[in-house]
């Protein structure tokens, strides 16, 4: 059990600043998700925590002990699961899980016990005699987690462990993973580019871009109160709408942001609500079962061609004819304001 402190961490590959001054404080027992697109530095950050990459500058403390520098991966009290699972191909599932225990010369009997315990936890006892190639993706992923678990690590480092699973399996695997982490209460750092995974798993999310941390917060904070336009558009599907409404009450160069699910026909709101009403020229309506996506443009906008998306839940049965202009509205309390030049949040 241990928290992780990261101070002003940097990693340069030639001219590329893969990680560019990251400060992060990961609490004991926390499930922290590093979210970013490829090249955002999230994997490099994870690999530096693991000790597989040497930082150019900065400090890493795991459980109060400084580990950047010469503490090798094996001595950091971590366990890691790679995207490819990195199972040893010539070893059975049992031998794979036993591998970290053998490395530290654990007695035979204890190995047996621990492996069985871990395999039981992930219900893969049946497969202990098989080879990795005889397993499905989901089973391999669980073997990799088992192997991480038997080390009894202070910290779990997971590098996109669900990315290789098919979409159906990913949901259950996500649930399993979260329950497992709650149960063992071990600090976990999880890297992903999938914002749904990040929202679903993380106690807190770290949004990264170009080697820098953009925002750290709970899924709710990151979703509802993005600190800048990058986070606003990166988190959420479809992304937040950002418009310059040329509102005289706002300072020049202010972008107004609102989530697609908050942009609804004027008529569905009650009379007492404080609304920002816009004229919405509907181009196309996409029927998705539980929702309808309405694509169009806002006529008040400084760039009237920019596509704006409204997401209407199935509970709103109102007909929205394509090619017509409708009155839509967003509750004012749900509007977010950003500076157009810097992208940063701004008070209205």
């Amino acid at each position, binding site marked *: 059990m241990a928290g992780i402190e990261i101070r002003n961490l940097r990693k340069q590959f030639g001219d590329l600043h893969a990680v560019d001054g990251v400060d992060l404080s990961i609490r004991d027992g926390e499930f922290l998700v590093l979210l970013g697109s490829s090249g955002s530095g999230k994997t490099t950050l994870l690999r530096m925590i*693991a*000790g*597989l990459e040497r930082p150019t500058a900065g400090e890493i403390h795991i459980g109060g002990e400084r580990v950047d520098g010469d503490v*090798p*991966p*094996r001595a950091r009290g*971590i*366990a*890691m699961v*790679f995207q*490819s*699972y*990195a*199972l*040893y*191909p*010539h070893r059975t599932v049992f031998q794979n899980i036993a*591998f*970290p225990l053998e*490395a*530290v010369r654990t007695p035979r009997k204890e190995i047996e016990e621990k492996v069985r315990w871990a395999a039981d936890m992930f219900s893969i006892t049946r497969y202990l005699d098989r*080879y*990795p*190639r*005889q397993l499905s993706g989901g089973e*391999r992923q669980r073997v*990799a987690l088992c*192997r991480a678990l038997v*080390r009894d690590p202070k910290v779990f480092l997971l590098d996109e462990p669900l990315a*290789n699973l098919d979409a159906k399996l990913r949901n259950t695997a996500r649930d399993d993973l979260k329950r497992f982490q709650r149960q063992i209460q071990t600090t976990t750092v999880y890297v992903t580019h999938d914002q749904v995974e990040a929202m679903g798993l993380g106690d807190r999310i770290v949004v990264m871009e170009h080697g820098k941390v953009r925002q750290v917060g709970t899924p709710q904070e990151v979703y509802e109160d993005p600190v800048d336009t990058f986070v606003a558009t990166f988190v959420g599907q479809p992304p937040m709408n950002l418009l310059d409404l040329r509102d005289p009450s706002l300072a020049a160069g202010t972008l107004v942001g609102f989530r697609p699910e908050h942009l609804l026909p004027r008529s569905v709101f009650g009379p007492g609500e404080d609304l920002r009403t816009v004229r919405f020229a509907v181009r196309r309506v996409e029927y998705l079962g539980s929702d309808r996506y309405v694509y169009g443009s806002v006529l008040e906008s400084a760039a009237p061609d920019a596509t704006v998306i409204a997401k209407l839940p199935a509970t709103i049965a109102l007909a929205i004819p394509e090619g017509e202009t409708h009155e839509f509205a967003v509750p004012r309390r749900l509007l977010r304001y950003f500076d157009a030049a810097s992208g940063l949040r701004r008070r209205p």
Partner: protein
Amino acid sequence: MKRVALYAAALGFVVFAGFPFYWMLVTTFKQNRDLYVGASDLSHIPWIFNDPPTLEHVKLLFGQTDFPRWVLNTLLVVAAVVVITVAVAVPAGYSLARLAGRWGERMGMGIFFTYLIPPTLLFVPFSRLVSLLGLQNSLASLILIYPTMTIPFCTWLVMGFLRSVPWEIEEQAMIDGYSRLAVILKVAPRLIVPGILTVVVFTFTLVMQEFVYALTFISSVEKMTVSLGVPIALVRGDVYHWGALMAAALFTSIPLAVVYNLFIDREPTFHHPFTRGGCHENPNGIVLRAHRRGSVHPLGCSSRRGPAAGRTGGQARGGGDAHHYGFHKRHSLHQP
């Protein structure tokens, strides 16, 4: 229907690959009259025994040449060169691929280019070197010189192979409790067994068929290797002792084909794990790639092995190899 096409293709391949072997076999045991009459008599059928078979050519090969001795010499040289090559090329390839960063790749290319300098150029300085060391007319000269062609190629081969083995497995081992050195000594070797086998096979092949250096450095008959002794002893002036030549080719290539087949049959079991066991690469892809590289070899000696070792079923495998060896023997026979 698809199956029929597959088997037809396999059969065609087997015939194509097995024919040189058959031809060697028939020629070995044919009487001379049966061999040469086809030139004047058009009704003569060349691929069957028209006269009763004879052991005449085999007796010539074993009785009047030092063939058994050459086989022994060849095995000795091959064994020594294989050991040297594996000992040097595997660690070199590993370091260049895993530890040397960007420069490793460039150096690997550089090393590979040295392989492209043909022996026909290099034998001049090498012969001076060999005589300076006092190794003229000894097998030691070949054991010294052959690694100059096998090591660069095999280093490059190992590098290429390692590119297909995810580094993550070794990183995982470092996290799981091993030091980098322990990973290199204990974990990595097991992962690169298929690469090592490929190195052994290529070294074998390159050395078996080598002619120029052997011709340059070896002068006494009892120190020759098969690839040198056979054409020198059995092509006298413009008299080709075809029966005995083919007998030599046959007796050298059959055991080799059998041994190589053992390798090939084993290789898939080594390969599968990489792919199915946790990464995306196709295991056969590894073999195929390695062997395609092999086909860069100017004599094209290895180009047939890839598909045989890779995807095709059992029947085609033997065929692939048979062809392969038929090919290389033929080559060495053409040399004089």
